[in-house]
């Protein structure tokens, strides 16, 4: 029993240390790094959501960009002009609920179409959504998009507001302020997603992924849980969309493309399916990589600075090569992603034989126990 206690303490200790570090970073990093962090936090929130859907429930989604857009545009419209001009904090909440409602509207499909087929069905959301963003310009501003009203919370503005704010000698601009907002939202995401995964819904979703038959005879309402996973994942996406909008300060339709959906899928594959920490690691990797490559393009071999002649490999492209390759290599050689690598390394460091559990190596979306599958159709 004391073993369990110390291990819990040890794990909490690390979390505490990490939290402290993240808390202190704005005092040491400049705006560039803070922006990377901010985008990563937003992406991590979204990735945790799609991880819950695709990694845990085994439902592939390529429609995540749509729900990010619903969150982002929802906030912009609700808090802005034209729009009801609600208090921004309320607009954030409603935007998240709106994304959830959008996911709920899709649930007749999301609840009944399973695994990789849902991935194809959700393509529709991205393309139809993009079309709506371009067309409904009274709400979305059309092709040029809309500027994002700043978030204000009890008189505190998350911008470079006058009067400026200086904490311990460090001027607090938009990035510093948004950093703490992002941190708070990410902490909320972490807390709730882990609660879900370790609780009754999480177990039901895992069962659904591994064997629909077993889950249903154990009393799991298959369609209901599939829909619910979709809705919850949409809400996380909506929250990520709000944070992205606040960070970008402008939303445009072309950002919310299929490529963005694929980015989020890449995050959870690279991070390792089915774990919150993995999704976070993947989000930081996929988000940070192109930004870092752009910044250090002149120092990297084979990578040209942005805007130099055709045919050369620009930093964004180099980043896409890298993570495209990462997806292929990881699925071929380390199907449990960064999360699994970390776990194995930890196990090795403790000089224990590495624990490799065949079924724990994050199964892909849509995985189900083959035994159950075979069973379903035999008379």
């Amino acid at each position, binding site marked *: 029993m004391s073993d369990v206690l110390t291990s819990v303490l040890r794990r909490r200790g690390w979390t505490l240390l990490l939290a402290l570090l993240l808390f202190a970073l704005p005092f040491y990093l400049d705006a560039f790094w803070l922006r990377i962090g901010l985008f990563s936090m937003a992406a991590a929130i979204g990735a945790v959501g799609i991880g819950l859907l695709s990694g845990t429930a085994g439902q592939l989604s390529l429609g995540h960009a749509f729900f990010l857009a619903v969150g982002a545009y929802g906030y912009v419209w609700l808090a802005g002009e034209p729009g009801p001009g609600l208090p921004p904090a309320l607009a954030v909440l409603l935007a998240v609920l709106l994304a959830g409602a959008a996911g709920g509207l899709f649930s007749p499909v999301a609840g009944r179409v399973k695994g990789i087929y849902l991935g194809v*069905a959700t393509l529709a959301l991205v393309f139809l959504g993009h079309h709506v963003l371009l067309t409904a310009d009274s709400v979305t501003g059309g092709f040029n998009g809309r500027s994002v009203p700043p978030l204000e919370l009890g008189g505190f503005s998350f911008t470079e507001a006058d009067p400026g704010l200086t904490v311990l000698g460090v001027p607090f601009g938009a990035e510093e302020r948004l950093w703490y907002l992002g941190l708070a939202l990410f902490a909320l995401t972490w807390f709730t997603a882990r609660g879900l995964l370790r609780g009754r819904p999480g177990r039901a979703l895992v069962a659904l992924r591994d064997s629909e038959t077993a889950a249903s005879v154990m009393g799991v309402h298959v369609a209901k849980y599939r829909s619910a996973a979709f809705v919850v994942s949409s809400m996380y996406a909506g929250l990520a969309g709000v944070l992205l909008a606040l960070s970008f300060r402008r939303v445009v339709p072309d950002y919310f493309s299929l490529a963005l959906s694929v980015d989020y899928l890449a995050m959870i594959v690279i991070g390792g399916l089915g774990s919150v920490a993995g999704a976070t690691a993947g989000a930081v990797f996929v988000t940070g990589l192109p930004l870092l490559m752009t910044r250090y393009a002149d120092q990297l071999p084979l990578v040209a600075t942005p805007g130099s002649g055709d045919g050369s490999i620009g930093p964004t492209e180099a980043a896409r*090569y890298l993570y495209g390759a990462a997806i292929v290599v990881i*699925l071929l050689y380390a199907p449990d992603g960064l999360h699994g690598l970390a776990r194995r390394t930890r196990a090795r460091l403790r000089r224990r034989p590495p624990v490799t559990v065949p079924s724990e190596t994050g199964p892909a979306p849509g995985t189900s126990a083959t035994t159950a599958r075979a069973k379903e159709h035999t008379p």
Partner: protein
Amino acid sequence: MTGLLDNLLNGVALGSVYALIALGFVTIFKASGVLSFAHGSLLLLGGYLVAVLHDDLGFAGALALAVVVTALVAGALDRLVLQRVGTDSHAAHVQTIVTIGIDILLVTDLARRIGGDLLTLGDPWGDSVTDLGPVTVADSRIAAIVVSAVAIAGAFALFRFTPWGLSLRAAAEDAEAAALMGVRLTRVRAIAWCLAGGLAALAAVFLVAFPAPGLERTTGQIALKAFPAAILGGMASPVGALVGSMLIGLTEALVAGYQSDLHVLGEGFGDVAPYAVMVLVLLVRPTGLFAARGAARV
């Protein structure tokens, strides 16, 4: 009236090109249970090869070489990358995600080469048109219908009359039993990928022919519209894929043709109409129009 005929003809032309792509999806799916998200990049590869080769080889030579090369690349991707994941049914899901990674790699590379340019493929039809009674049709569309029909007939002949076709059907029925009876699944599926790759390269030519402006870096995304077509057809049925493709092609052409009457839906709705149709069909039949219905309820 001529308007309607025009639109219908456009729809059939578009549908036959989608059918080339959708048939590829379905063949791959039957052989391996994989949904190929790499199809857009294969299509782009085929189109790109024709674009860079036609000056030296002439259009026909370039097309022939592009079809062969794309087919080989597709087959090699399956044999050398996807099949390494394994061949059981769990692996099919992982392989599907791997195709997304492959797509990112190929599209990134091709898009970098194409840059912001519009490439022409040097096809012999150009912008010429033919009068067919009351309607005037672009030659490229007639060519699309004729060539697609021939290619599709050829593919069906392969399914029906070759040992490979038999193996493919056996593998789709029950992969394990087929393997026990001596079907070499690895080869069956590699050939399926080759066929799909070749068809995609062929489709590329007609997708970027007149009145489309030419090959762009985003041309590959059009391949995704064949997904709704394949899904509507139930994913595992070649005939279903044909019907689905026609449905999608006609929808797109009719919506685009009557855009002025459908302006509430916004400009360019034709491009996304296939997806709307897919969602509507999935609402009614989550397994597609042509999927077999079993006794199982879940």
